[in-house]
């Protein structure tokens, strides 16, 4: 089973995010960048599928700058076999990025293309389904359970109030949601081994977006609220305020 996992370098979810001087991007000073959390589930699933098949390889790929090598190394340390850095900047929309990735993925060389369901920076949730469409492959997004038997894929995807079962035949595209598995931590041995694993670099140029970020804005400050009181005796007053002031009950 040959699997490719597309990943992204993003700010850690505990980071405070501040608008940068240009007003259109973030100030990356002091921010810790990590492998996108949803991509960890994708890498883990790829490793499990390869292990179950007993043969094949896991390739991790990203579109980004020199700094994304660190992110690729993290995935290699988890156990991926090789990495490809597509040198160029991802676009503000999904399509530009999807075009670059789709152009680099050779149909026929992979059975499965895995993604995290979305990157937690731009929160687009677009690229996996776009890559599938551009490559003419079947696809399931927001997947919480995956079964691959011979070349038949059964994926459970999260929908409002339940699940949808999606079935298709390989090759195909899967985008991972949080419940899919429990990602492993890179072991010390894995981290050492990752340094020697092949990391190919290809210049692909910057992705071209169909839309532009005009500005990034802070959320409007919430007016300071009030502590209605202490303990259960404050409840009647709270309920009165919710009904009469806030008019939400």
């Amino acid at each position: 089973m040959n699997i490719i996992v597309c990943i992204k370098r993003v700010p850690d979810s505990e980071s405070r995010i501040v608008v940068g001087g240009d007003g259109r991007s973030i100030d990356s000073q002091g921010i810790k960048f990590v492998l996108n959390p949803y991509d960890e589930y994708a890498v883990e699933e790829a490793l499990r599928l390869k292990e179950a098949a007993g043969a094949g390889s896991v390739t991790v790929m990203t579109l980004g700058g020199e700094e994304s090598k660190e992110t690729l190394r993290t995935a290699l340390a988890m156990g991926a076999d090789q990495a490809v850095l597509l040198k160029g900047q991802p676009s503000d929309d999904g399509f530009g990025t999807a075009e670059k990735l789709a152009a680099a993925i050779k149909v026929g060389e992979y059975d499965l293309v895995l993604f995290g369901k979305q990157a937690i920076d731009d929160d687009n949730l677009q690229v996996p389904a776009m890559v599938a469409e551009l490559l003419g492959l079947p696809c399931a997004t927001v997947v919480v359970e995956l079964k691959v038997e011979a070349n038949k894929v059964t994926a459970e995807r999260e929908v409002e109030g339940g699940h949808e079962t999606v079935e298709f035949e390989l090759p195909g595209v899967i985008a991972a949601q949080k419940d899919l598995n429990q990602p492993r931590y890179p072991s010390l041995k894995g981290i050492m081994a990752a340094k020697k694993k092949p990391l190919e670099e290809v210049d692909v140029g910057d992705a071209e977006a169909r839309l532009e970020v005009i500005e990034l804005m802070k959320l409007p400050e919430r007016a300071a609220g009030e502590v209605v009181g202490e303990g259960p005796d404050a409840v009647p007053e709270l309920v009165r305020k919710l009904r009469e002031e806030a008019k939400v009950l």
Partner: protein
Amino acid sequence: MNVLAFAEQRAGTLRQVALETVTAGRALADGLGIELLAVLLGPPRLADEAERLGRYGADRVLLGTADTLGEYAPEAYTELLARAVQEHAAKALILPASAQGKDLAPRVAARLEAGLASDVTELAVEDGRVVAVRPVYGGKLLARVGFKMDPALLTVRARAYTAAENPRPGEVEGMTPEVDPEKLRTRVRLAAAEKRERPDVAEAEIIVAGGRGMQGPENWKLLEELADALGPGAALGASRAVVDAGWRPHAEQVGQTGKVVAPPLYFAIGISGAIQHLAGMRTARCIVAVNKDAEAPILKVADYGIVGDLFEVVPRLAEEIRKLRSEG
């Protein structure tokens, strides 16, 4: 030129987000001074549902029905929507940012080589171009984005627009539902057994969310009781800590690696307010926090707070709300 709005149905009934999407589409079409066409795809006998869309502002309704369109059929829906955009020279196509809309919109965008703005909370027209505001970084910032070319594809977040009646003729026109069967390679079935009684946290009017202060999954019956008192529009939510601890399913998680929500009313019970949780719920219209720690960050963003033991406060709250509801 037209604006198209995708009206999502499940099992032959329009979903609430369909009406919200048509309402958003109406506002955008008015801004552009062009017609709004709703597109409804689904199983046979949808004519009554199609007619309802006129009431929410659709000038016309394109209706495509077939047995094969009853369940979500990604390839067929993609083909039919892309075709509708091309045939009607659409300036914009709006879909709900629902599970189905988020899966479908990028496929259609890729087919049309178009730009897509996801999870939009505000729409505007500036100098004839579509401009949208959307939360990014899990709700920590907002991005104002403008399309460089047509068509503009957008998914609109649930509850960002309130479905509003705005009657138009809404004349229903049939669409050819046939698609090349060669292209249909995915089979989708809704797992009906798992349908839950409460609304999804992303679409709920009221969210009752619990955190580590709940002390264990067995105590969630307190929150269920409060949600029951609040009525059928109330959903249960959870902080990342309790989801990671396995107390609650990830589908309920509110925050950067869960769902970013903006309900009219949000209860944060025993949630201290980590940065990634606050980002996910701070645009709720009214936030109520119950916490034993007077210094908890959640109390800085809450409109109303009670400092105290949630095991005493929450049952009392459920009781007072039940009393209020029974008085009508």
